[in-house]
Each structure stands twice: as structure tokens, then as C-alpha cells.
């Protein structure tokens, strides 16, 4: 039994490692703000959101669509989905309360605990079945339909009856039947618990069968060592069954755990949706395009991390960058360049993991990896110079970046004089483009930006932070030639 709510045909692996660039992404795109909004203080939800979003860049369009449909169902039936989620949480919590500890040395105790846990699991599985019975028809997505059909098929009434029979038989009211053979020194070995013949069916047969000889003896009450041997023998006999049963409970537990993990992603989405809708921010399901295309067209794109921290509505941008490999953003300080860059990265990651995105409309090609290279504060350890540090980070990215990745650069290579910085940037960016890597570069390196502008490349887009004639900012980006000053003077004037 599989949940298959994250992928059509595979489990979501919560233990998968984060990609190497994850720490930089978290820092540069302020992802923790997003994760926190999805988690609402629940560490498990946080963990799932983090893994789902950061490990999403290898997904094909099918998976994105698969999740989008499930998410749409979730938005429609939020209460029901939360109820299923809560059932899984309950199963897992209650299982944990049946503590085994040192008793795990006794098959008897293992068996007993497994029976109790199984009883509890069965009651929750029955509730799950009931929800499926009552509401399955209301769900439209392929994922949920498959899930409910599976519950219906696997958890039939007959099945529950068989399980109930086992649970009763394993109380051993009629005694324990164990087979054995003679091992070294004629000691009993290979103790195996046997299923006693079912009486109802066999009584006639047994009546006419020649009675096989049997001999018995009874251990006196005061014989303590004899009783210990007896329970030891019993333990050896039920060892295999206790193991099988304990492993079965573990399997059911991992079913619940898997279901909980996969639903947790959607619960996180529901949480986020609630908060953004409350602020009146628009959300839309994006249109992903294949990775070998170059698409980026959106309206009303905003920075979701900023929106979650601001009281008022935040500035949004419209972009037309279909067919573009390179977007160079220049212009005024404090003009919304960094916010824009972040909003692109966030929307890309959210789209690729099957979420809605913070925009009125959004269409982009999927990419094989998202990377960020942002200017950092001075290295406090003084181990290496600043340019040294920047280039070393760049080199680490080069080690792992693949064609059709997206690289966001924010004021990179500014740690030296402009001419040198520009030359470094030019060489690096040229190489990246030739490697079919999509680049968004916020930069003050005028010489660099302008040299690309002068090439009149079809595949390059130049955006400028807008500044009105009086020096005030709109925080909107407009298309235009890189300008030589970044209006630092403005800023200086405003502050002094």
C-alpha cells in the first residue's frame, strides 16, 4: 500500500539529502520565511516543506501537473484533507506511547505489544476507509482517486475480518503449538509456531484418524527453573511470529508515516494559501514549460517572503522574457532589484515543486537546478580575501551546475575594481551562457552590463530599476539600457 500523493509511482523520500546549494538558496531567497509560513510552528511540516521545495528541481512536467491537481483538490476539501492528516498523526503518536524498551528481549512482550498496536492501527484504518467510502467521489485529481480506490480495495471488510481472526488466535487460549527438531547434542532446535488445525472443518477427519501417540508431563508449581525453561521454550516458539507481527506493525506505521509526510506538503500549502489570501495577495497555478525552452512571462510577480513579512501589499512586476537566456538588471539602489531577483527564484522553486506561485500569471521553463551567487559580508574569519571568497563560491557552483539550470547573481564580483570585476564577470557569464545556463544578474558593473548590451543579443533582456525624475522610486523594473550611475547620490542625499 502506497500513498503516492507526491509522485505517481514513487515515495517521497524525506531522508533525501538537500542539494549542495541549499544553504545558499535558503539564505539568499529568505526561504525560511516561506517554510515558516507553511509550517506554522510545526517542525515536521517545516522539514517536509524544506525538502519538497529544495529538492524539486529534477521534476518533470508530469509530476508538477500531478501535484497541482492534488493541491487543487486539497484547496477544495481542506477540512477533509486535514482530517486524514490528523488521523495519521494520531496513529503515529499513539504507537509511540506503546513503549517496548528492555522488554524487547522477550518475544512474548513483543507479541503482546504488537497485538495492542495492531488493534489501534486497525481502528484508525477503519476510519480512513470510512472517509474513503463517504467522500471519494468528491475528489477529482488522479492522485486522490487512486489513493481512495486503493483504500477501498486493500482495506475491505473481509480483510479486517481476517486480521481480527489473527489477533484473536494469537492470544493462544488453546495453548501454543510448536514444532521442533533435534540439533546438536539432541537439544531441540528450529522451534516454529504452528497453526493448530481448524476444528470446525476437521472434526470428522480427526475423529476417524488413528490417534497418534502423545505423552505429556506437568511442571509442578514450585519448580521455578522449570517454569522459566517453559517460558523460554514458548519464547523460542513464538519468536518468528512475534517478529513477523512486530514487523507488520512497523510496516503499517511506515504506511502512516509516508501518508503523513506526503500530506504534510499539501497541509503546508494550505497554511500558506490561507495567509496570502488573507493579505489579499494574488496566487496562481503556473504554467511550466519544458527545460529546453526559454520562458519567463509573468504578471503581478511579487516576492512571497517579503509579502509575508510586510503589513501592506508589496510591489509586483510584469516580465516578458520568453526566449531570453540572460537578464541583466541594473539601476537605482533600493530600487527593488534584489526583491525582483528573489521573487524570480522563489516562484521558480515553488512552481517546480507543484505549488501555486505568488503572481497573477506565471509561465516559465523548468530548470535542472536553481543556484544563487550573492555578494556576502566580509569573511569574519579573515581566512581569505573577499574576491577570493566569492570566486571560491563560484567555483563550487561550477562544480555542480548543469545545463538548463538557473543562476541568480546579485552584485557578484564587485569586490575588486570595476574593470577587473567586469572582466571576470564577462568571462564567467559568457561561459555559462554557452553551457546553456539561464542567468539573472543584478549588477552595478556598468562596463560589463553595457558590453553585453552593445552586442544586441536576441537572447538578452536588460531591466532597470525605475527612478522618476524627482529621484523617488517606484520599485518597479522597466526594460532599458544600463545606465552609468546607480543613483547612489540620491540615496546619499536622502540619508544626509
Amino acid at each position, binding site marked *: 500500500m502506497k500513498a503516492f500523493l507526491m509522485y505517481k509511482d514513487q515515495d517521497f523520500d524525506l531522508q533525501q539529502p538537500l542539494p549542495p546549494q541549499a544553504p545558499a538558496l535558503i539564505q539568499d531567497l529568505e526561504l525560511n520565511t516561506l517554510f515558516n509560513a507553511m509550517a506554522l510552528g510545526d517542525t515536521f511540516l517545516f522539514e517536509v516543506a524544506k525538502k519538497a521545495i529544495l529538492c524539486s528541481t529534477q521534476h518533470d512536467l508530469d509530476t508538477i501537473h500531478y501535484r497541482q491537481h492534488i493541491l487543487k483538490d486539497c484547496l477544495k476539501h481542506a477540512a477533509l484533507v486535514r482530517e486524514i492528516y490528523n488521523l495519521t498523526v494520531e496513529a503515529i503518536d499513539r504507537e509511540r506511547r506503546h513503549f517496548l524498551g528492555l522488554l524487547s528481549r522477550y518475544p512474548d512482550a513483543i507479541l503482546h505489544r504488537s497485538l495492542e498496536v495492531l488493534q489501534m492501527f486497525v481502528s484508525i484504518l477503519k476510519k480512513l476507509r470510512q472517509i474513503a467510502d463517504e467522500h471519494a467521489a468528491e475528489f477529482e485529481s488522479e492522485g486522490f482517486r487512486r489513493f481512495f480506490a486503493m483504500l477501498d480495495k486493500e482495506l475491505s471488510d473481509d480483510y479486517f475480518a481476517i486480521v481480527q481472526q489473527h489477533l484473536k488466535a494469537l492470544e493462544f487460549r488453546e495453548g501454543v503449538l510448536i514444532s521442533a527438531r533435534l540439533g546438536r547434542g539432541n537439544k531441540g532446535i528450529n522451534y516454529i509456531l504452528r497453526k493448530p488445525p481448524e476444528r470446525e472443518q476437521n472434526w470428522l477427519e480427526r475423529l476417524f484418524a488413528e490417534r497418534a501417540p502423545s505423552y505429556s508431563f*506437568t511442571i509442578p508449581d514450585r519448580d521455578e527453573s522449570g517454569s522459566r525453561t517453559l517460558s523460554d*521454550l514458548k519464547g523460542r516458539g513464538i519468536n*518468528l511470529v512475534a517478529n*513477523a507481527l512486530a514487523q507488520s506493525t512497523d*510496516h503499517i506505521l511506515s504506511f502512516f508515516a509516508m501518508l503523513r509526510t506526503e500530506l504534510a506538503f499539501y497541509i503546508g500549502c494550505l497554511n500558506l494559501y490561507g495567509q496570502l489570501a488573507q493579505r489579499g495577495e494574488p496566487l496562481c497555478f503556473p504554467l511550466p514549460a519544458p527545460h529546453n525552452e526559454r520562458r519567463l512571462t509573468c504578471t503581478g510577480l511579487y516576492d512571497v517572503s517579503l509579502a509575508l513579512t510586510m503589513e501592506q501589499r508589496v510591489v509586483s512586476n510584469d516580465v516578458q522574457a520568453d526566449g531570453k537566456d540572460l537578464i541583466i538588471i541594473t539601476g537605482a539602489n533600493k530600487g527593488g532589484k534584489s526583491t525582483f531577483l528573489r521573487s524570480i527564484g522563489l516562484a521558480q522553486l515553488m512552481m517546480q515543486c507543484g505549488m501555486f506561485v505568488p503572481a497573477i500569471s506565471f509561465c516559465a521553463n523548468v530548470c535542472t537546478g536553481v543556484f544563487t551567487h550573492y555578494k556576502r559580508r566580509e569573511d569574519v574569519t579573515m581566512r581569505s580575501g573577499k574576491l577570493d571568497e566569492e570566486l571560491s563560491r563560484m567555483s563550487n557552483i561550477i562544480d555542480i551546475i548543469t545545463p538548463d539550470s538557473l543562476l541568480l547573481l546579485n552584485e557578484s564580483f564587485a569586490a575588486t575594481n570595476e574593470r577587473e570585476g567586469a572582466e571576470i564577470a564577462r568571462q564567467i557569464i559568457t561561459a555559462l551562457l554557452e553551457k546553456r545556463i539561464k542567468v539573472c544578474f543584478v549588477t552595478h558593473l556598468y562596463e560589463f552590463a553595457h558590453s553585453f548590451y552593445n552586442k544586441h543579443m536576441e537572447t538578452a533582456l536588460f531591466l532597470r530599476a525605475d527612478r522618476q525624475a524627482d529621484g523617488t522610486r517606484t520599485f518597479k523594473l522597466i526594460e532599458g539600457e544600463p545606465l552609468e550611475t546607480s543613483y547612489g547620490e540620491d540615496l546619499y542625499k536622502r540619508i544626509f
Partner: protein
Amino acid sequence: MTFHSILFPETEESSRKETAEAPDCFIDLNLDQIVDAITASKQEYDLKPFFYTPLHDLDTILYRHEIMRDLENTALFEHIQAFAQKMRRMREHLAQAEKLYYKYQKERWFLDAVGLYCEAVTALARDLADVDLQSRGLLALRAYVTDYAGSDPFTSLMAETKQLQADLAAIHYCLLIKGSTIRVRKYEAESDYSVDIEETFAKFRQGAVKDYLVKFRSWPEMDHVEAQILELVARLYPDIFSHLDDYYISNAHYLNATIAAFDREIQFYVAYLEHIARFKRAGLSFCYPHVSSTSKEVYAYAAFDLALAHKLLNEKSPVVCNDFSLTGKERIIVVTGPNQGGKTTFARTFGQLHYLASIGCPVPGRQAQLFLFDRLFTHFEKEEDIKDLRSKLEDDLIRLHDILEHATTDSLIILNEILTSTTVNDALFLSKKIMEKIVQLDALSVWVTFIDELSAFSEQTVSMVSTVVPENPALRTYKIVRKPADGLAHAIAIAEKYRLTYHALKERLQA
């Protein structure tokens, strides 16, 4: 040719000589360490008495060389190891049977011990048939084992053993435990319940889960409840168990004495070959020495101290080999030279090679010719014993007197740094007196000394010197070479190395 012993050809009149105590020379030559190391993993065979017994006839030495050479064939060696392994398990089974209380337990361990014995013998006969053998000893053994394994008593013992084992293995019974009552009956094809459980819950299987199987400790003994169950099982299968009773009584003397003796004695070779294999892997050579009881022209090339090499190998340090050669009238090697230069090691090497040759073993070295001595005397400088009222010098002289009293012209005498606890003049005087006696005996000997004069005592003495690296006199080569004693004071070099010279000390003490 009938098989007698794998250690002694049948011509040996006093067959299977063993010595309980280590010879006197063992400690001085570190042979005790060598034999301890060789026999460490073979305690059960009590092999030391063989190593404590030097041989005095060349034929027995050759007899052993032949067997050793045959055993260098890895296929044969592995066959012997497999045989030994089975025989060891057989002994363990017998010991276990001895210790147990309940009859059916004793009988079963005994039965399985005999089973292992039968396997060991048949496998040995089968394995030996396929190997190319050259030695008189192993050829005779092969004939003997083949004959024995095909004999009626043995084949019928084996058939009966196998039948009984199969009968017991086929027993399959059921216990019905209810409350404190146990009912025992034959197994009636009831199904395995755990399979049922696994099938029922298979649909939930997600991936690997924890193993909840409890590890039950098991020991050979039974308690009264298990014994009672076994009694009842015996009642369910009365024929098999009465057969077991009869078997136990009628086969008490199943073990063939010649096979048992071979199992122990062959380990002398196995232990030695296993021990030297390590050194061979490290690139050191062993050879079968040419042993003579008449010629005192002895030599060895690339010889080394087996005890020291063992230590060095453990420390991954290189092993230095040395040569020696005595021709014509030469009998006495006088070793002088810097301290810590390998002189004592050289003396030990000379002694070890001769001793190991005398027990018929290959010796550490590339090529060797050695003398079959009648006795091997050593006198190495010892710590003063505080309880001993005699002075060290007195002690030295008493011991030397003792040696010279018993030594013959065929003896080997190894002296190391004796007579040090007196003045140089005294030492020179006494040493010359002793040297005269050894020269008179014409016995082979090695004498490590600080008295250079001894090295040119007569035409029978040969001077050998421990050497240093010419460019750095503080560095030892541990090579002992044949050249006149040069009396160079190397002590100053060592002092320099430790910065204990006058100038060095002045500098250091300034602070």
C-alpha cells in the same frame, strides 16, 4: 613399508623421543620466544617437546626435510589443515560428551564426534590420493590411511554412524504448551504461523524494517524440563534411541592410535611452516641447510635472527641479514665493534640456525651448510642476581668451567660479553686462557667480546666486526662483516648524536 611416525623414520631405535624441558641454550638464543611463537596457536597438540629435542642422526633430519618440502605444496598443506580442523572438532565433541549429564546428550555428542572422525579419515585418504608425494614419511602415511579407510571395520563404522545421524535428523516433533503442561507428539504437517502473518500484512510492506527476532543464547547443557521432553521424544521414536544406546557402548574404542598420533605430530611441520610463511611474505628467505656431522666448514648467507625478525616485522621495521663462513681450520668467530651494532643478534643467529637445523627444519637464510652438534653451550651476560652470594666474575668462571668440562670437539659454544665485571687486563688474561681451551677442543664457536686481541688469537679465529655508516658513525648498519678488529671508539659518535660531547654540553649548560 609400514607407517611408523611422521617425525621419525622407522629405523630410529628409540622411537618418538620427546623432551619435556627446554634445553639450556633456549633463553640465551631467544629460541624460547621462537618456539612460543610457533606453538602459540597449537597449544592443544603439546608440540614443544618435539622442538626441545635436537636430533643426532642425519637420516632423521633428511626424513623431516622431505616431509617439509612436500608440505610446501599448498594443496597438500590445505588438505592437512582440513584434516586437523575436523579432528579438532572431533576432540571438542568428545570433551563435550564427557561433560554432559543426560545420557541421550552424551550419546549424541559421541555419535557426532565419530561422524567427524570418519569424515576426517575419508577426506584425508581421498585428498592424499590426488597429491604428488616425494617424502618417505608421507608416502608411507598415504599407504596406511588408504588401507585403513578401506578396511571393513572402518567402513561399517562410518555407515552405521551416518545412518544413525540421518535417523535422528529426521525426527520432527511438536510441543503443545498449555499452562504448565507440555504434550509431546509427532509433527503432523501443521503450517508455519509466521508465514501466515507475513502474508496477511504484506500489503503494508514499505521498505526495510527493524529485526525483532530475539537472540536466544544457547548452550550445550539441558535442564530437567528439556531432558524430560527428550525422554518423551525418545518414547515416540524408540527404535532410533535404543540403537543410539547400543552404538555408544559398542564403539568406545573407535579411534585409531596411528591416526591420532599423526594428527598431533604433523602439526610440528604445520606450525613451523605457518610461522615462517609470514617472513617469506616479507621477502626473507629460508633454506634447507646442508647438515654435516663431519665437516666443520659452515656457512650461511642472508641469515637472520628469527626472534628479532618477528618483533621487527610486527613493528614494520626492516630486518638486516648477515653472512658467515668458516673454511679450513677456522672454528671461532670473534665478534667485536660498536655497541648496539647487532653483535648479540649475530651470535644468536649463528646458534639459532644450528639448533633449527638440528631439529630438521628449514633455517632463516638463503643458503646454509651447518654442523650437526652433539651439544650447544651458551653463556650470555646476565643481570647480577642479588640473592646469589657469588660475584659476577666468579659466576662467569664457574659457568665457563662447566661448559668446558662437558663440551666435546663436536659441541657448539656461544659466548657473549662475558668477563666484563673485571679490569681489562684481568679480562684479557682470563679470556686468553679460555680461548686456549676452546682452540684445543677444536669446537665451533662464536665469541662476542670487547677485547680486540682475541680476534687474532690463532689461525682458528676469525674476526668479524659490527659496522657503521661511514659518513655518519652514529648510524648502525647492523651488518657484521669479516674484517680485522679496528678498535675505533664509536662512543663519541653516539655522544654527539645525543649532544653529550664537551662542546655540546657546554652549549646546553650555558642556559
